[in-house]
């Protein structure tokens, strides 16, 4: 397989990995913020 085509697959794999990591960590951060707000509303 042409190395340029191979690089396309590598870029897809790393793009998928880092996009997933950013989304997952962002979801944790957003849920922490929401939980803190909900707790503050109840106290």
């Amino acid at each position, binding site marked *: 397989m042409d190395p340029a085509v191979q690089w396309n697959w590598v870029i897809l794999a790393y793009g998928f990995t880092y996009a*997933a990591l950013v989304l997952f960590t962002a979801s944790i951060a957003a849920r922490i913020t929401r939980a803190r707000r909900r707790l503050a509303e109840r106290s």
Partner: protein
Amino acid sequence: MTTPEQSPSPTWPWIAMAVAGLVTFVAAMTVSADAVQGELSRIMYVHVPAAWLAYLAFGVTMFASAMYLWKKDLKWDRRALASAEIGVFFTGLLIGLGMIWGKPTWGVWWTWDARLTLTAIMFFVYLGYLALRRTTDDLRTRAKRSSIFGVLAIVQVPVVHFSVVWWRSLHQAPTLLRPEPPEMDTSMAVTLLIAVASFTVMYVAMMVKRIELARLEDAVVIADQTHSGAAAGDAVTAPNLSGRGM
């Protein structure tokens, strides 16, 4: 005494995750390509660490679940939850990366090979663990049910890992977790170990933040139950006896 919403929220895990991600990327992009697979071998430096973290996360889930059943302390249940969610995330990532690697090397995105099928089953079983936790708001009932599940579900991890040894498989044999030394060039093995170490740092950092979230979510549940309990208590201790209905 600080309440959960006042407790400090450490920032170092975010920094650790970013640094670990950067280290993995630089190491994987600078190492020489494999003689047979060429540039595609670079996918290994995220695929194998994702598999390692799935195993590690589900192992920690089993340990924390067993500790909850022994100690009855909800902090162990929160640790089990945090690790299970991270494990599901990395199993999903592992399957996705396997598909991206499989298409150019095997010619197909997916095949019903033993390793692939068992990994998919493991993914759905641990999704079931997360779903089971949503069946009740009672923290103790939830912890007991999910801890039993968390202990039993670990049986899949060795089955997934050794599936390539026990059955004829399209998937290659284990690269690192095996009795013999790795059959790869030293520079590639070192790069893979750097990637595995970086992903492990990422896992620890994610655990810190996910446990913080679990503690806050439990505090919200307790606050809601205390609030609704007080309302119900008012109704019981001070019923409307005037006979005028609402």
